[in-house]
């Protein structure tokens, strides 16, 4: 009896070790921690992760796939974020300036209250589409580090240029921002 109990115990322990080993292999091989931002950092060409989220600027939902064929500036922000307030007028100007060339600025509100986000949209007279990612699922797949953060998606749906960490209008980010817009529009060969 002791022998059989011992063998069962050993089998359970062995199964536990094998399960943990399998988890480790899966984590290393398949887990996409860091999202697209990490892949871009490794120099990979990455397609923008799809999402469909509730709109904050009007009723209904908006899918990134609906914007295929357009250049998209995807800006993650939150109403409590001070640098997001600084860059909001610049994003609005970008939308107005390049809209006729087929560029859309798409705001993705993250870790925020809907009512605060709507007040923010009114306060800065934002007319570009804004969606709500309160649960953070989209931000996670994009590998967001914080807000504000901005990505550029070209007409084929690929992420181009460098992600911008921090406000797009800062001295440090201004050149990368202009370049990202040009790449998304296909204006850079």
């Amino acid at each position: 009896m002791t022998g059989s109990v011992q063998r069962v115990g050993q089998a359970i322990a062995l199964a536990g070790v094998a399960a943990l080993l399998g988890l480790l292999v899966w984590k290393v091989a398949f887990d996409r921690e860091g999202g697209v931002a990490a892949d871009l950092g490794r120099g990979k060409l990455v397609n923008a992760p799809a999402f469909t989220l509730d709109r904050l600027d009007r009723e209904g939902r908006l899918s990134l796939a609906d914007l295929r064929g357009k250049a998209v500036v995807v800006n993650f922000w939150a109403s409590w974020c001070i640098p997001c307030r600084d860059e909001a007028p610049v994003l609005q100007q970008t939308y107005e300036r390049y809209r006729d060339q087929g560029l859309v600025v798409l705001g993705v509100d993250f870790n925020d209250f809907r009512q605060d986000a709507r007040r923010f949209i009114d306060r800065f007279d934002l007319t570009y589409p804004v969606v709500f990612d309160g649960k953070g699922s989209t931000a996670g797949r994009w590998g967001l580090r914080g807000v504000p953060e901005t990505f550029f998606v070209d007409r084929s749906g690929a992420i181009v240029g460098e992600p911008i960490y921090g406000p797009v209008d800062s001295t440090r980010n201004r050149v990368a921002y202009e370049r990202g817009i040009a790449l998304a529009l296909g204006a850079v060969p």
Partner: protein
Amino acid sequence: MTARLAALVATAFVLGGAPPSGAATTPSDLEAELVCPTCETTLDQSDAPVARRMKQIIRERLAAGATEAEIKAELVDQFGDRVLAEPPKSGFDLLAWVVPLGLAGAGAIGVAALAWSWRRQRSAEPPLPLDSVVERRIDAELDRFDG
């Protein structure tokens, strides 16, 4: 009187820090049970901007007469289950409660089975015969003790 006092102390110990039933929920109660979505610590430990806003909303909603459950539901609607310090006791999250209890139960059954098996094995073994010299010496000692 002493027994009554002891019962009162025991009840207080069992209830721990939980507010007595019927007592009004305070902002501090909720801040300890909800997590800031950006820094992932409980609200009472966080000073992040979104945590400050959540605390403000909690105070406003409590003042307006909302219950603890209503406020939690509103915050989960905004941010998802990740704002709850404890996983919900339903759906997939129920596993977080059931698995540790199941493992503890399985462990207890395993230990009991081992103990039973050892005990059975020991009782089945015949006692070892005593050395004749030792046996004679024990008999002599017992006689001396009785005599």
